[in-house]
């Protein structure tokens, strides 16, 4: 393992993480809900209860780059997959987060914060799967 010191950005990572934690705190203390993006999205699409407040959270998330753009240039956004990879990845993320009842935000941030065993296991599983997939794609298939 070699650490890529050139691209390692500890302070923005910690500060951005703190903002994510602040947002999750505001949502649970204000609205009584977990800020899990896949769950909110699924619930808004399927018409669950409390749809209005959930949709407003997602609207805020969607508008974030527009607010950012008023004050600064948007950060780099670089994709490394072709369209087939994007389609496959999107399908897996869509179906997997619904069966697994959460993603990086719901399980990884909120679930671990409230010491949920389910979220801890889910996070370990999707992290391990992510590490393994990148290893296979980059180092075994040489993609």
């Amino acid at each position: 393992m070699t650490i890529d010191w050139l691209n390692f950005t500890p302070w923005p990572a910690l500060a951005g993480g703190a903002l994510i934690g602040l947002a999750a705190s505001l949502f649970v203390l204000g609205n009584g809900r977990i800020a899990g993006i896949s769950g909110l999205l699924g619930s808004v699409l399927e018409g669950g209860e409390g749809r209005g407040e959930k949709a407003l959270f997602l609207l805020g998330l969607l508008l974030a780059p527009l607010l950012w753009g008023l004050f600064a240039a948007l950060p780099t956004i670089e994709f490394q997959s072709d369209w087939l990879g994007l389609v496959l990845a999107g399908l897996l993320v869509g179906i997997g987060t619904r069966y697994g009842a959460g993603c990086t935000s719901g399980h990884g941030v909120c679930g671990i914060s409230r010491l949920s065993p389910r979220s801890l296991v889910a996070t370990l599983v999707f992290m391990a799967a992510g590490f393994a997939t990148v290893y296979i794609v980059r180092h075994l298939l040489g993609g």
Partner: protein
Amino acid sequence: MRRLSAFLAGLIFGIGLLLAGMANPAKVLAFLDLAGAWDPSLALVMAGAIAVAAGPLNWARTRTTSLLGAPMQLPVKRELDRRLIGGSLLFGIGWGIAGICPGPALAILLTGHWQIIVFMLALLTGMGLFRALESRRAL
């Protein structure tokens, strides 16, 4: 007030993702590439988020309503079942292919890249597929 807090929470969440660099799929993939030039940033994003959210989320567990009067709705399921493991496995594979998870996908949806539109349409199709399979199971 609850509408405002929901909207602000989403907005702050999105700004946090952009600031953290997590809206950049290449950076996420660099975190997942342990055998390559490893960028540990994402671990600090999670650490920062958990450090801030742990107190409030654990306080929320002791309450039945939110500070703005909404019912406190925290997950109650405890069992580690096949759905949780299998679903998380599929999600992790998809995450490893493109470096995009649902939060960042929404946070960059309106930035005008065709790739995120393709990813989002596939993600919504995947969620629709889940719903179709679930309603068949319920019959």
